[in-house]
Protein backbone atom coordinates (compact mmCIF):
# COMPACT_ATOMS: atom_id res chain seq x y z
CA UNK A 1 0.00 0.00 0.00
CA UNK A 2 2.93 2.32 0.59
CA UNK A 3 4.29 1.95 -2.95
CA UNK A 4 5.05 5.19 -4.76
CA UNK A 5 3.53 5.47 -8.19
CA UNK A 6 1.71 7.91 -10.47
CA UNK A 7 -1.34 7.86 -8.18
CA UNK A 8 0.44 8.60 -4.89
CA UNK A 9 0.55 12.37 -5.45
CA UNK A 10 -3.26 12.56 -5.28
CA UNK A 11 -3.48 10.86 -1.89
CA UNK A 12 -4.88 11.40 0.63
CA UNK A 13 -7.92 13.03 -0.96
CA UNK A 14 -9.66 15.87 0.87
CA UNK A 15 -12.98 14.95 2.46
CA UNK A 16 -14.91 16.85 -0.25
CA UNK A 17 -12.99 15.26 -3.13
CA UNK A 18 -13.43 11.80 -1.59
CA UNK A 19 -17.20 12.23 -1.36
CA UNK A 20 -17.45 13.75 -4.86
CA UNK A 21 -15.66 10.71 -6.33
CA UNK A 22 -17.82 8.33 -4.26
CA UNK A 23 -20.94 9.99 -5.66
CA UNK A 24 -19.63 9.71 -9.22
CA UNK A 25 -19.68 5.91 -9.14
CA UNK A 26 -22.76 6.59 -11.30
CA UNK A 27 -22.84 9.45 -13.86
CA UNK A 28 -24.27 12.60 -12.24
CA UNK A 29 -24.42 16.36 -12.82
CA UNK A 30 -23.22 18.91 -10.30
CA UNK A 31 -26.31 19.51 -8.21
CA UNK A 32 -27.09 15.78 -8.09
CA UNK A 33 -23.58 15.22 -6.66
CA UNK A 34 -24.24 17.83 -3.94
CA UNK A 35 -27.54 16.17 -3.00
CA UNK A 36 -26.12 12.64 -3.06
CA UNK A 37 -23.16 13.56 -0.83
CA UNK A 38 -25.48 15.10 1.74
CA UNK A 39 -27.70 11.99 1.78
CA UNK A 40 -24.73 9.55 1.81
CA UNK A 41 -23.12 11.28 4.79
CA UNK A 42 -26.38 11.87 6.70
CA UNK A 43 -25.87 15.61 6.36
CA UNK A 44 -22.36 15.52 7.85
CA UNK A 45 -20.69 16.61 4.61
CA UNK A 46 -22.15 19.42 2.52
CA UNK A 47 -20.52 20.67 -0.65
CA UNK A 48 -21.11 24.23 -1.80
CA UNK A 49 -21.22 25.14 -5.50
CA UNK A 50 -17.89 27.02 -5.34
CA UNK A 51 -16.13 24.02 -3.85
CA UNK A 52 -17.77 21.66 -6.33
CA UNK A 53 -17.02 23.79 -9.39
CA UNK A 54 -13.35 24.03 -8.39
CA UNK A 55 -13.18 20.28 -7.71
CA UNK A 56 -14.79 19.40 -11.06
CA UNK A 57 -12.31 21.65 -12.87
CA UNK A 58 -9.27 20.08 -11.20
CA UNK A 59 -10.59 16.49 -11.42
CA UNK A 60 -11.39 16.91 -15.12
CA UNK A 61 -7.97 18.47 -15.87
CA UNK A 62 -6.24 15.61 -14.01
CA UNK A 63 -8.48 13.13 -15.87
CA UNK A 64 -9.97 11.50 -12.75
CA UNK A 65 -13.45 12.26 -14.10
CA UNK A 66 -14.79 12.82 -17.59
CA UNK A 67 -17.78 14.60 -19.06
CA UNK A 68 -20.34 12.14 -20.43
CA UNK A 69 -23.05 14.55 -21.53
CA UNK A 70 -24.27 18.12 -21.34
CA UNK A 71 -27.99 18.85 -21.17
CA UNK A 72 -29.43 22.30 -20.46
CA UNK A 73 -26.03 23.68 -19.37
CA UNK A 74 -25.69 20.85 -16.85
CA UNK A 75 -22.62 18.70 -17.36
CA UNK A 76 -22.76 15.07 -16.32
CA UNK A 77 -19.51 13.47 -15.19
CA UNK A 78 -18.37 9.96 -14.39
CA UNK A 79 -15.18 8.34 -13.06
CA UNK A 80 -12.37 7.42 -15.43
CA UNK A 81 -10.32 4.22 -14.88
CA UNK A 82 -7.66 6.48 -13.30
CA UNK A 83 -10.29 8.02 -11.03
CA UNK A 84 -11.50 4.57 -10.00
CA UNK A 85 -7.96 3.44 -9.11
CA UNK A 86 -7.36 6.53 -6.99
CA UNK A 87 -10.72 6.22 -5.24
CA UNK A 88 -9.98 2.57 -4.46
CA UNK A 89 -6.60 3.52 -2.98
CA UNK A 90 -8.29 6.19 -0.86
CA UNK A 91 -10.89 3.71 0.39
CA UNK A 92 -8.03 1.39 1.45
CA UNK A 93 -6.48 4.31 3.37
CA UNK A 94 -9.80 5.08 5.06
CA UNK A 95 -10.18 1.39 6.02
CA UNK A 96 -6.76 1.51 7.69
CA UNK A 97 -7.66 4.77 9.44
CA UNK A 98 -10.89 3.25 10.72
CA UNK A 99 -9.12 0.08 11.93
CA UNK A 100 -6.52 2.16 13.81
CA UNK A 101 -9.21 4.42 15.22
CA UNK A 102 -11.30 1.53 16.52
CA UNK A 103 -8.23 0.10 18.31
CA UNK A 104 -7.58 3.38 20.11
CA UNK A 105 -11.28 4.02 20.78
CA UNK A 106 -11.33 1.12 23.30
CA UNK A 107 -8.72 2.95 25.40
CA UNK A 108 -10.61 6.21 25.31
CA UNK A 109 -13.97 4.93 26.46
Amino acid at each position, binding site marked *: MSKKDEFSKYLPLS*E*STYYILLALVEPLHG*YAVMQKVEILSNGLVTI*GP*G*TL*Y*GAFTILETEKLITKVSEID*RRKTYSLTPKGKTILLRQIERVEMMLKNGVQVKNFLE
Partner: protein
Amino acid sequence: MNAEIKKVRKWFWVWDDDKEEAWLRKMANDGWRLTKVGLINSYEFEQSESKDLIYRIDYKDGYNLKLDGYIQLFEDAGWKHICEMSGRHYFRTPMRGEDEPEIYTDNESKILKYRRILVGFYVLIPVFALLLINRPEVTKSPKFTIFDVYLIFIIFLEFFFIFTVYKLSKRISQIKHL
Protein backbone atom coordinates in the same frame (compact mmCIF):
# COMPACT_ATOMS: atom_id res chain seq x y z
CA MET B 1 -44.35 52.33 -10.56
CA ASN B 2 -40.67 51.57 -10.83
CA ALA B 3 -38.74 50.66 -7.73
CA GLU B 4 -36.45 53.30 -6.32
CA ILE B 5 -32.79 52.97 -7.27
CA LYS B 6 -29.90 53.97 -5.04
CA LYS B 7 -26.24 54.24 -6.05
CA VAL B 8 -23.61 53.94 -3.35
CA ARG B 9 -19.84 54.29 -3.50
CA LYS B 10 -17.98 52.28 -0.91
CA TRP B 11 -14.44 50.98 -0.89
CA PHE B 12 -13.59 47.39 0.04
CA TRP B 13 -10.17 45.77 -0.25
CA VAL B 14 -10.05 42.61 -2.33
CA TRP B 15 -8.96 40.57 0.75
CA ASP B 16 -11.84 41.95 2.83
CA ASP B 17 -14.58 40.32 0.75
CA ASP B 18 -16.24 39.01 3.93
CA LYS B 19 -16.75 42.63 5.05
CA GLU B 20 -18.23 43.46 1.65
CA GLU B 21 -20.58 40.46 1.92
CA ALA B 22 -21.66 41.48 5.43
CA TRP B 23 -22.38 45.03 4.24
CA LEU B 24 -24.51 43.77 1.32
CA ARG B 25 -26.45 41.58 3.78
CA LYS B 26 -27.10 44.61 6.00
CA MET B 27 -28.31 46.58 2.97
CA ALA B 28 -30.80 43.78 2.14
CA ASN B 29 -32.04 43.82 5.74
CA ASP B 30 -32.53 47.59 5.36
CA GLY B 31 -34.62 46.99 2.22
CA TRP B 32 -31.98 47.55 -0.47
CA ARG B 33 -31.28 44.70 -2.87
CA LEU B 34 -28.09 44.69 -4.95
CA THR B 35 -28.68 44.89 -8.71
CA LYS B 36 -25.32 45.93 -10.17
CA VAL B 37 -21.68 46.45 -9.26
CA GLY B 38 -19.80 48.98 -11.33
CA LEU B 39 -16.15 49.67 -11.92
CA ILE B 40 -14.31 51.14 -8.90
CA ASN B 41 -16.48 50.50 -5.84
CA SER B 42 -19.88 51.61 -7.11
CA TYR B 43 -22.96 49.62 -6.13
CA GLU B 44 -26.51 49.90 -7.39
CA PHE B 45 -29.45 48.90 -5.21
CA GLU B 46 -33.18 48.54 -5.77
CA GLN B 47 -35.64 49.25 -3.01
CA SER B 48 -37.60 46.19 -1.88
CA GLU B 49 -39.04 44.66 1.25
CA SER B 50 -36.54 43.98 4.02
CA LYS B 51 -35.17 40.44 3.80
CA ASP B 52 -32.21 38.60 5.32
CA LEU B 53 -30.14 37.74 2.26
CA ILE B 54 -26.68 36.19 2.34
CA TYR B 55 -24.23 37.42 -0.29
CA ARG B 56 -21.13 35.60 -1.49
CA ILE B 57 -18.49 36.82 -3.92
CA ASP B 58 -16.69 34.23 -6.02
CA TYR B 59 -13.68 34.77 -8.21
CA LYS B 60 -13.61 32.88 -11.48
CA ASP B 61 -10.58 33.03 -13.75
CA GLY B 62 -10.39 32.12 -17.42
CA TYR B 63 -12.07 35.17 -18.96
CA ASN B 64 -15.63 33.97 -18.32
CA LEU B 65 -15.15 30.79 -20.33
CA LYS B 66 -17.82 28.15 -19.68
CA LEU B 67 -19.85 30.73 -17.79
CA ASP B 68 -23.23 29.07 -18.50
CA GLY B 69 -22.42 25.84 -16.69
CA TYR B 70 -20.84 27.75 -13.83
CA ILE B 71 -23.89 29.94 -13.21
CA GLN B 72 -26.25 26.98 -13.70
CA LEU B 73 -24.50 25.02 -10.93
CA PHE B 74 -24.82 27.91 -8.47
CA GLU B 75 -28.48 28.52 -9.40
CA ASP B 76 -29.28 24.79 -8.99
CA ALA B 77 -27.82 25.05 -5.50
CA GLY B 78 -30.11 28.00 -4.73
CA TRP B 79 -27.75 30.91 -5.35
CA LYS B 80 -29.00 33.74 -7.56
CA HIS B 81 -26.32 35.21 -9.83
CA ILE B 82 -26.61 38.98 -9.63
CA CYS B 83 -23.72 40.38 -11.59
CA GLU B 84 -20.07 40.10 -12.53
CA MET B 85 -17.32 42.68 -12.30
CA SER B 86 -13.83 41.83 -13.58
CA GLY B 87 -14.01 38.13 -12.72
CA ARG B 88 -15.82 38.67 -9.41
CA HIS B 89 -19.27 37.07 -9.36
CA TYR B 90 -21.89 38.21 -6.87
CA PHE B 91 -24.38 35.60 -5.63
CA ARG B 92 -27.10 35.70 -3.00
CA THR B 93 -29.47 33.31 -1.27
CA PRO B 94 -32.02 33.74 1.53
CA MET B 95 -30.71 33.06 5.05
CA ARG B 96 -31.96 29.68 6.23
CA GLY B 97 -31.11 27.30 9.05
CA GLU B 98 -28.67 28.10 11.82
CA ASP B 99 -25.46 28.63 9.85
CA GLU B 100 -24.96 31.00 6.95
CA PRO B 101 -25.09 29.14 3.62
CA GLU B 102 -21.64 28.94 2.01
CA ILE B 103 -20.43 28.52 -1.56
CA TYR B 104 -17.07 27.20 -0.26
CA THR B 105 -17.57 24.42 2.25
CA ASP B 106 -13.96 23.54 3.01
CA ASN B 107 -10.74 25.45 3.64
CA GLU B 108 -8.86 23.87 0.72
CA SER B 109 -11.25 25.25 -1.89
CA LYS B 110 -11.54 28.61 -0.13
CA ILE B 111 -7.76 28.96 -0.26
CA LEU B 112 -7.84 28.16 -3.99
CA LYS B 113 -10.24 31.07 -4.53
CA TYR B 114 -7.77 33.52 -2.93
CA ARG B 115 -4.92 31.91 -4.86
CA ARG B 116 -6.71 32.69 -8.14
CA ILE B 117 -6.97 36.35 -7.11
CA LEU B 118 -3.34 36.29 -5.97
CA VAL B 119 -2.04 35.06 -9.33
CA GLY B 120 -3.59 38.06 -11.09
CA PHE B 121 -1.65 40.45 -8.86
CA TYR B 122 1.57 38.40 -9.01
CA VAL B 123 1.62 38.88 -12.77
CA LEU B 124 1.28 42.66 -12.47
CA ILE B 125 4.32 43.11 -10.18
CA PRO B 126 7.04 42.25 -12.74
CA VAL B 127 5.15 44.05 -15.50
CA PHE B 128 5.17 47.31 -13.56
CA ALA B 129 8.73 46.70 -12.36
CA LEU B 130 9.76 46.52 -16.04
CA LEU B 131 7.98 49.81 -16.70
CA LEU B 132 10.10 51.35 -13.94
CA ILE B 133 13.41 49.87 -15.12
CA ASN B 134 12.85 50.57 -18.82
CA ARG B 135 11.59 54.09 -18.40
CA PRO B 136 12.34 56.51 -21.24
CA GLU B 137 15.44 58.73 -20.96
CA VAL B 138 14.45 62.19 -19.93
CA THR B 139 16.84 65.09 -19.66
CA LYS B 140 17.07 66.35 -16.14
CA SER B 141 14.75 69.23 -15.67
CA PRO B 142 14.18 71.11 -12.46
CA LYS B 143 10.53 71.44 -13.30
CA PHE B 144 7.92 68.90 -12.37
CA THR B 145 6.81 67.30 -15.63
CA ILE B 146 4.08 64.97 -16.78
CA PHE B 147 6.78 62.29 -16.80
CA ASP B 148 7.21 62.63 -13.03
CA VAL B 149 3.48 62.20 -12.59
CA TYR B 150 3.67 59.03 -14.67
CA LEU B 151 6.59 57.74 -12.61
CA ILE B 152 4.90 58.40 -9.27
CA PHE B 153 1.75 56.72 -10.55
CA ILE B 154 3.68 53.58 -11.59
CA ILE B 155 5.55 53.46 -8.26
CA PHE B 156 2.29 53.88 -6.38
CA LEU B 157 0.64 51.01 -8.31
CA GLU B 158 3.69 48.78 -7.83
CA PHE B 159 3.50 49.25 -4.05
CA PHE B 160 -0.25 48.72 -4.14
CA PHE B 161 0.18 45.37 -5.95
CA ILE B 162 2.90 44.21 -3.54
CA PHE B 163 0.73 45.20 -0.58
CA THR B 164 -2.25 43.32 -2.05
CA VAL B 165 -0.18 40.16 -2.56
CA TYR B 166 1.02 40.45 1.05
CA LYS B 167 -2.53 40.87 2.37
CA LEU B 168 -3.94 38.02 0.28
CA SER B 169 -1.13 35.71 1.42
CA LYS B 170 -1.92 36.64 5.01
CA ARG B 171 -5.60 35.87 4.42
CA ILE B 172 -4.67 32.45 3.04
CA SER B 173 -2.47 31.61 6.04
CA GLN B 174 -5.30 32.65 8.40
CA ILE B 175 -7.64 30.14 6.71
CA LYS B 176 -4.99 27.42 7.06
CA HIS B 177 -4.79 28.01 10.81
CA LEU B 178 -8.51 27.59 11.36
